[in-house]
Each structure stands twice: as structure tokens, then as C-alpha cells.
């Protein structure tokens, strides 16, 4: 099977099955719109790197996902965004962390990759670099949504590090389970087998200021080479330890597993239950979207006509 393919995610986590319509529908609609955007771009011959970037930009702009606008807040009520991007053919990559005013972190990551001799810029320096390049910046308040202010308050009240998608309930049970997670990402491949991956996030609710997660760490949250492109989401600390994105490719390369087998192996064996999901495409146009959490906001499509938009497991 050879042809283009694309997959994107809006975060894996403990997404409650009874997620109310007013929270579920806007996200499903956003996934559909982003998928359509990505598919049109691929069909019109845009390189996968451009496609991954433009889809992630769209997800960053959407306030219901934990990236760009709608990012979760640090313990000080501020926003610190991070992103990375990787081109499979050349293995060039770019990453940014600690952004507070840059409207599209993924595009800044791309700029770091293309316009500097470095791979990764962070905090004040990354912000200064953005301004020097005339990248779009806004007041930090632009990124902060009332939902996230409420999430932070709730997390502080329960005094634990928590990720996204907590549905505020009057009483949270003691074993409310794993913290919830959110990130956005996109992987794409064209019919020539060129691959690319991009991931972007606001991080953890109530995270320590200066905390860096898996998203900007090449090999953890993002990876692409000549075999596949991967974008992961979940508990950053577990994804870093598990070198999740790299491991999918490594299993294909070193153990000869297929994309689906490799991705399933990583999600089931390399990281704890409830911690991780990923989307991946292969040079052959295959797609896989495994996760070991309650759900993962996801969508994919391939040239053979298959497409899917989903939140919970399919069975």
C-alpha cells in the first residue's frame, strides 16, 4: 500500500466516556477540520513537513486543545509552550520551549531548524529569536482560557500535578485515577515516502515553572526518519524515559516489526498503562493510532480512502 497518509491527535488521557456534548462536539469538529486541511494539502502536493506544520498550527489556534491558545497553566498561572518538528528525509529537526507570547510554537520550532545552526532554543532567548524574525507574538493573556484557569484552581485544590481533560465535578473520587493529558501533533507522508512529524503543547496543569516535557525532546515526543513519523502524547516523564517516538522507528529498523506492531509494542510494553498514545505513519502510507489511556482525540486518513475520527477505543 503506497500513497499519502496523515494522522493527527489532540491528546491522550483519561477522557471520560460521559464527556458532555458541549465539550466533545467542538473537539470532534476541530479534528475533522484539521484532517480536511491536512488531506487537501497533501493532495495538492504540499510536502509533509509543511502539512504537519500547518495542521499543528490549526490545532494550536483552537482553544480546546492543550497547545498554543488553550494551553494549560503553570503553577504560577502562566503559559509556557513547547513544540518540535522533524523532517524524516533529512532528519533535520527544531524545538522550542518556554514560549509565552509566540502564537504558533510549531512554526518557531521550524524556524529554529531552518534558520539557525542549532536545534533547540528556549525561554527568553527563544522569545527574542521570535521577535528578531518578526514571528507573530501576542500578549500572554491571549493563550489563557477560563477553562484552564478553572483546571489550575482544581489542580491546586487537590494539590497534585494533573494533566488536561479533567471534567470538573463537584466531588472528585480519591482514585480518580491517572492525571489527564493533552498535546497536539501531526504526522504525514506523501506518495514518495517523505515523512514528517510535529508536536506542540502547553504541558501539565500546575507544572513547575521551567518544566520541560517530552514534546520538544526529539526521540521522545517527536521523531521521523525514512521509515516512519511519530508524534506522542501523554505523561511527558514516561514518554521521555520510554524514548517513545524513536522506539517505534527503532523497532521497525532493528527488529523488523511493521509500523502497527512497533507502535503497539511501545504503547503496551515501553510505557505504563494510562500514560501514552501516539499517531504514526510509515513510508508505505500505513497509519496507526494506538493508546493505552481511556481515550485519545485523533483523526487519520490515507489515499486509499480510509478515514477515521475518534476519541475512545473503536471496539
Amino acid at each position: 500500500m503506497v500513497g499519502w497518509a496523515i494522522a493527527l491527535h489532540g491528546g491522550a488521557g483519561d477522557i471520560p466516556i460521559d464527556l458532555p456534548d458541549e465539550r466533545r462536539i467542538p473537539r470532534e469538529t476541530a479534528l475533522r477540520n484539521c484532517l480536511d486541511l491536512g488531506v487537501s494539502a497533501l493532495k495538492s502536493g504540499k510536502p509533509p513537513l509543511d502539512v504537519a506544520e500547518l495542521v499543528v498550527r490549526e490545532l494550536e489556534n483552537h482553544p480546546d486543545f492543550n497547545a498554543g491558545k488553550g494551553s494549560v497553566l503553570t503553577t504560577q498561572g502562566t503559559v509556557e509552550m513547547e513544540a518540535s518538528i522533524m523532517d524524516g528525509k533529512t532528519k533535520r529537526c527544531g524545538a522550542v520551549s518556554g514560549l509565552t507570547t509566540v502564537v504558533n510554537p510549531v512554526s518557531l520550532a521550524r524556524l529554529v531548524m531552518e534558520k539557525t545552526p542549532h536545534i533547540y532554543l528556549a525561554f527568553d532567548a527563544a522569545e527574542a529569536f521570535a521577535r528578531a524574525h518578526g514571528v507573530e507574538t501576542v500578549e500572554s493573556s491571549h493563550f489563557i482560557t477560563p477553562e484552564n484557569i478553572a483546571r489550575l484552581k482544581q489542580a491546586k485544590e487537590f494539590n497534585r500535578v494533573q494533566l488536561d481533560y479533567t471534567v470538573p465535578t463537584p466531588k472528585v473520587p480519591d482514585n480518580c485515577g491517572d492525571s489527564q493529558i493533552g498535546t497536539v501533533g501531526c504526522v504525514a507522508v506523501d506518495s514518495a515516502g517523505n515523512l514528517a512529524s510535529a508536536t506542540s503543547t502547553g504541558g501539565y496543569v500546575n507544572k513547575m515553572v521551567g518544566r520541560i516535557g517530552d514534546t520538544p525532546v526529539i526521540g521522545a515526543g517527536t521523531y521521523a526518519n525514512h521509515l516512519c513519523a511519530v508524534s506522542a502524547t501523554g505523561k511527558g516523564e514516561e514518554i521521555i524515559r520510554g524514548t517513545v517516538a524513536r522506539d517505534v522507528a527503532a523497532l521497525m529498523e532493528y527488529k523488523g516489526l511493521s509500523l502497527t506492531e512497533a507502535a503497539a509494542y511501545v504503547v503496551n510494553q515501553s510505557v505504563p498503562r494510562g500514560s501514552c498514545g501516539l499517531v504514526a505513519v510509515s513510508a508505505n502510507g500505513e497509519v496507526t493510532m494506538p493508546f493505552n489511556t481511556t481515550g485519545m482525540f485523533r483523526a487519520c486518513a490515507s489515499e486509499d480512502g480510509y478515514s477515521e475520527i475518534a476519541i475512545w477505543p473503536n471496539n
Partner: protein
Amino acid sequence: MGGWAIAVHGGAGIDPNLPAERQEEAKQLLTRCLNLGIVALRSNISAIDVVELVIRELETDPLFNSGRGSALTEKGTVEMEASIMDGTKRRCGAVSGITTVKNPISLARLVMDKSPHSYLAFSGAEDFARKQGVEIVDNEYFVTDDNVGMLKLAKEANSILFDYRIPPMGCAGAAANDSPIQMNGLPISIYAPETVGCVVVDGEGRCAAGTSTGGLMNKMMGRIGDSPLIGAGTYASDFCGVSCTGEGEAIIRATLARDVSAVMEYKGLNLQEAVDYVIKHRLDEGFAGLIAVSNKGEVVCGFNSNGMFRGCATEDGFMEVAIWE
């Protein structure tokens, strides 16, 4: 086979014109650090503790590019980063943008042991350091006269290379009598990485690894390299412990440290084969080196660069400190 093993490095990619006294100083430092590690291992100190104490010694000594003696940013300040990983359970900690913490590797360890996160940077990391009560010094403490001189040379020779509006290219202004060898596209006489690292397997077969650096001379503030990135500069698993040094971009793209373990785990290669494989196949046009130990008590160094400051020792009495091939 079996028993403890330790390796240390002070950077891959060395100026072939490095003065003899400096080469001698380097070997003495490596020997001293190895001995520190050996004494600790003989007292049954665990791999992760040995890695930390050896790297602290390397950071404290001003010779290599870590802690005191770190390369300077474009503003003449020091910004350090480090990471540490405990193979058992693959716990890890990393820090970047450190400016006042005397021993960044210990802060990375605290991130691993005492915070809910794996990686802290800049002001957040500095705040955490103060809360943890680690030793704090002024940024000037880390700055050495040697490096002030180096920064001046770097600026004179290479100012154009750090203007990010201009694509990276070989340095046109390199001094005529300097070696033509380059690392990161820059003359090695000025830009030798000299990152430090240590890998250990203890008597129980537990592996650990750590890496610490001031980064690239004349670097942009806020620039992060491979040293604090788990899977790139540092990695440890049940199989091995790895610390890398060299061209940061090449190491990150290759996920070099992770790949040593991955080929052992997924291809069944032994440590020597794994190191040979990644150095040969994963670096493309990049230059780098690494040190690695296995849970079987083996130790291997590998590099495709012009030399690597290194030392290694095993329980059966083997010991070697070297610079060139």
C-alpha cells in the same frame, strides 16, 4: 566478565595542535576522576551515586567544558546543562539554562529524585535549586580567563556564523595556522566540545550514565544541546549506560545514546558491536564519540571524531586513559 566498570570522558573532537601540557593535564584529571570512581565502586557505592560524584569532580575542575571552566555564551556568561539516568527503572533527570548552581549534575539528580518532573530549565530550575538548598555561586565563579580569551577569538573568527540570518557555513576567518578540522562547522581549536560524562556499572550489574556541559562557545543564550536530552546525550537501561559528546545536532538526530541500548535490546548485539554499529551507521556526516558500559561489566569507547578525552577501568584491573585513536 561481570564486576564493576567505569568510563569517563572530557569531550570528543580535539584540536590536533593541542599543547602537550594541556594533554597531560587532561590525562591527569581523567585519571584522578577514574580513581575516585574506582574507590567508590570498591566501597559498593551504587552506579548512580558514582556517576554523580565523578561528574561533580569534572564540573569542579576548570579544565573541561562543564561547571567551572564552561564555554561562554555570546554575552560572556555561562549557561550549563546536564542530565543523569539510572538504568534500573530508567529514571532520569535533566537541567538546562543553569547559571548559579555549582554542580549542575547534582541538580539534575535532584530533579530525578525530588521533583515530579524529568527536566527543569532556566529560572524554574534555579528556583528549584534554591528550594533544595544546593550550593549556589555567582555566575562569575564559572568563568575562567582561558575561556574569556577563547570567546574573544571565537567572536573575531566567527561572528558571522552566529548571525542566524546567514546560513551556516565553514568559517572563513579561521586563523591560518589553525587546524582545518571543524566541529559544528567551526574551527576545532576554539570550538572543541569538551563536554564531560561518566558511565558506570556497579557490582550488582546496575548501569547509570551522566553528561554535563557549558555548551558551544559563543552560543546564543537559550540554546540547548544534546547533553540534557535523554536518548541523545545520555541514556541508561538494564542493558547499558551511555554518555555522548561531539556535534550536538548529529547526536540529537541520531538519538545516539538511546540507540546503543536499542541495538542491544532489539538486535541482540553485545556492547562492543552496539557501539561500533551506532558510530558507523548512525552519525551520517556528523562527528561524535561516546563511552558505554554494559550490565556484564564491559566498557567500550567509540568515536569517529579526531580523538576523545577518555578513561576507563574494570574490576579485573584494566585501566586506560587516552586521547587519540
